[in-house]
């Protein structure tokens, strides 16, 4: 099962913040946020929790497993 995410939607709902702004907020590079959004990099639990907490959402609303 593949890990999917709603990061892009979350960013746009949060005043259309840029990837760089989110990267600064959670302490990673812009390329890491970009790779997570594209589904090419699975973040650690710590980073996933940091991102979810930043958007003030439960983890499962930002990251979820692909349904078959």
């Amino acid at each position, binding site marked *: 099962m593949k890990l999917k995410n709603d990061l892009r939607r979350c960013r746009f709902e949060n005043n259309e913040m840029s990837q*760089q702004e989110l990267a*600064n907020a959670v302490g990673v590079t812009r390329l*890491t946020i970009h*790779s997570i959004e594209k589904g*090419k*990099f699975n973040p650690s639990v710590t980073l996933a929790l940091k991102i979810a907490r930043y958007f003030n959402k439960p983890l499962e609303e930002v990251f979820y497993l692909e349904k078959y």
Partner: protein
Amino acid sequence: MKRLLKISNNTTLVLCVISIAGLIFTNVFFIMLRNMIIEMGDVESFMDKFSVPVASVYIIFTLFHLSALLTLILQLNFFKRDNFLRSFLFFTGITSLMMLFGDSALSSDISKEYVFGLPDEFYILFLSQALHFVFYVLMIVLLVSTGKSVGKEKEEIVLKDDSIFINAQYIGILSGASGLILVSVFSFMYSTLYPLPLWAAKAGIIITSLIAVIPYVLIVFYWFIIKLKERTGEWYDEKQYQDITKASLVTLIASIIVMTAVFLIQYYVSEFDFITLTWFPFYIFLVLLLFSSSTLYFSKRAAN
């Protein structure tokens, strides 16, 4: 930052144009000197006549190189996207700067050896001039293209920079590839076509290795200076850790395969005996090339 970059861009552009004119002058001088040696003319008085103007032009070259390197570092800081041309110019800028001192040493050798015929140093001297030319022309291209975008570019706040990391991989690839080529060609040529005393071959290999590796050492040093303000555990973010871990595994496997192949070739083909002299720089440049290219591949693969 924007203002400083604009001033640095413009100063470098002016020095670059002057340096191109100077490069034409020095090349005309070297061609005339070569012809004079072939025709057995009065080389000594010719060199005396032009020594001061040529030395003055070389001072301008040095100023231009220092200004260009400062501009490149400012651009690396300012533009938050990696750029291969910028990395290539950082690499050629440093090698070209080192070759300015090489030109001086070669000219000194030529002035001592011309009485015995046309010195071979002219080949290296003209190769060095070609390197300077490539650097000067591409520097103009970069300065003109970025000069417009400096004003438009937004000054973004970047807490964790990835462009230096990617640019360091580009420079690692250039250093690794050029080091492998230079060391292999140099040692192969001198052990077969132009046999040299062992000390001279060793000195040649050390000098070519240093010229190839110094740009990488400097960019890593620059990256290290930037990272000093962070804790060691935060030098890479988690994706960069994953990329360099994968790249290390690729480097380990690929370097074992290549070094085994080199060992077998050397064992069975006597012409490849030169590797006994160069195995250490050969291995260093191979590892540098493999590690930088695989790190770049893993970083870029996720971005596309």
